[in-house]
């Protein structure tokens, strides 16, 4: 009995160790490019131009980071990115929650057709509507404004789909119980159902924020004034023509600088992100 148990434990421990070793190996492989980027960011550009392997030798410098900070526009670009990403995230959560509730709980003529129309939005690539959208925003004088950067992202068919599915999964008995207590539709939505969708809201919010923070193409052609650049566009604008060779250290410092807020976000919301990703996989 004891032997059997021991073998079982040994077997499980051996298996666990193999898995752990594999996880560490894969983690290092995943981490290697990040470490490489950090290393390059701490080297002088001139040294890297001659030999990138100099990353393994002293001296190191933080001048590339000081050079970023010396560009007075950087903090403006960070502020712009924060305003756009936060505004877009809040707007998306509000609209998708309301739409999801409507599609899941309310009966109105054409609901199913409208839902299909919304889902069709998933099949339309952004590039297909880009020119028309750019022209409309031009007519409405929305380019180089925060509204112009936020509004296109509020059309979020995936978010509507996600929230609809979440609301549908909540038992209708909860609504009925609240109705018996004379609660209004909005009160049921606000007080009873919305708190139950926090995991979905976290998933949607995190993905929306990350997508918005990293978005490049629409801000590139809509926010064309230096003062309206988001961080991605602004950082790209500081690269010299042949940045990949002449300003490699500076370029890598920019990559770290631009990615740092997202890393901080990840550290704070790690639990939700992991739940969101695994939840999405299971679902």
């Amino acid at each position: 009995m004891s032997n059997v148990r021991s073998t079982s434990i040994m077997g499980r421990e051996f298996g666990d160790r193999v898995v752990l070793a594999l996880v560490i190996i894969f983690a290092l492989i995943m981490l290697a490019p990040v470490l490489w980027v950090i290393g390059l960011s701490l080297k002088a550009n001139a040294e890297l131009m001659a030999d990138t392997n100099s990353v393994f030798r002293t001296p190191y410098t933080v001048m590339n980071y000081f050079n970023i900070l010396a560009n007075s526009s950087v903090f403006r670009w960070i502020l712009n990115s924060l305003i756009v990403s936060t505004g877009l995230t809040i707007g998306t959560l509000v609209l998708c929650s309301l739409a999801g509730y409507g599609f899941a709980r309310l009966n109105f003529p054409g609901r199913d057709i409208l839902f299909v129309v919304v889902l069709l939005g998933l099949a339309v690539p952004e590039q297909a509507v880009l020119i028309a959208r750019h022209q409309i925003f031009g007519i409405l004088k929305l380019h180089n404004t925060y509204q112009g950067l936020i509004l296109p992202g509020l059309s979020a068919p995936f978010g509507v789909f996600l929230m609809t599915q979440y609301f549908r999964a909540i038992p209708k008995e909860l609504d009925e119980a609240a109705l018996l207590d004379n609660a209004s539709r909005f009160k049921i939505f606000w007080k009873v159902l919305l708190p139950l969708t926090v995991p979905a809201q976290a998933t949607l919010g995190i993905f929306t924020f990350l997508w918005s923070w990293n978005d490049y193409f629409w801000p590139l052609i809509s926010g064309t004034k230096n003062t309206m650049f988001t961080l991605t566009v602004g950082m790209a604008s500081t690269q010299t023509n042949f940045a990949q060779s002449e300003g490699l250290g500076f370029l890598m410092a920019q990559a770290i600088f631009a990615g740092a807020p997202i890393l901080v976000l990840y550290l704070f919301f790690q639990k939700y992100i992991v739940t969101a990703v695994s939840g999405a996989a299971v679902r």
Partner: protein
Amino acid sequence: MTRHFRSWIMAAASVAAMASASPAFAQDVTEISVQRFFGACDADFGTNTDVSKAVGECGIITSLINKFNADNPDIKATVTTVEWPGYDQLTAQFAAGDPPDIVTVHESALSDYQSKGLLLPLDELLATVGISPDSFTDAGRGGVTKEDKIYALPIDSWTMLYHINLGLFKQAGLLNADGTPILPTSVDELLAQAEQFKQKTGKPYFVQNLANETALFTRNLYTYLFQQDSDFFADPTKVKLNTPEAKKVFELYKAIFDKDYTTKNMDYGAAIQAFLAGEGGVQLNGTWVVGDYNASAATAGTALNSGGYAVYPYPQLFGGKKAQYADGHTWAVSNKDDRTPEQLAAIGKFLKFFADNDFEWSRTGHLPAFKAVLDSDAFKALPHRDTLAPIATLGTPLPSAVQRQFAIQDIIGEEMGAAVTGQKEVDAALTDAESRINELLANL
């Protein structure tokens, strides 16, 4: 608390009223918007107005604009820096009706905007500030002239060059008695010298960036088509690439690749590193790296320092016209209905300032766009300018009426790259390149 708040409001209102009433605060400054590539380098040159202390494209252009603003307190040139080459943004700005006043445009891209009436003809404006197109170099003037009008101020001519590691050339027995490199005069000679180089040094003759690259292939093709007198854009709306001349160029570069006379699988940055580390004899790169390579050659312990560095135009490999592909950077001015006469005058001053300071810009490694600078002792005294000066007459752009030259460059680069690296037959690549370009030009 309320009284304090009121006091603050009153004070703020007073300041605002004074500002709007005082000419010194706001009224006399004419603002013009300038949009450029070449990157940002505020940490080093953000406040520098001593242009002679600036180095590199970014440093010099930043310092020049700083100096313009300092010299002209009645004008404020507000700069937006865009990622190279910035044409997605510029096109979007034109579409939205909000383009910058002055913008950097390659000569090869001018037609895209000029043909749609988006650029201001500059003949009159340049005349008012005393700039004559006769003062431009032939390459500069040709690059900015469209339908007999001047559509931009040329500031340089640039081209691809043979950057040479003289130490390895010596080892390969490819130096003349006077220490100058022996360069080929025909395709056969090039291949023979490349073989000799490989045998004697154990290294490839060429250092090329063949990975993630389209421009190098295309510029090489253009140069050697010009040298065969191939009029491949006789009709600016239709290319003829499926020709024996183009096939010769494709096959030359394929032979160089197949016989290991070139580095492989290197992107632009890797190729620069390889050349600076002495891993090959000739790097095909542009005018813009002359300064960096010269600095490396002057640094003890570097590969270029041991034997020396030289730089030359592409050798003449064919019996036709002596030529090589060239392009140039310009300042173009957008067409705007709501521009004031003061703004137009300020733009004229800006262009005049850059014309007067073209020597400073030529320190980047680019060739000047003004004859007087090209002929000046100061320019000739810059490193390697004696060997580079012939570019002013050799430099040949595509016909100015050819539109979408950046897109064409990508198509040719993709097809030639596929042929050279063996992913596609040469004939198929030429056919595909021709049909893709003509389809592009037919749908403008």
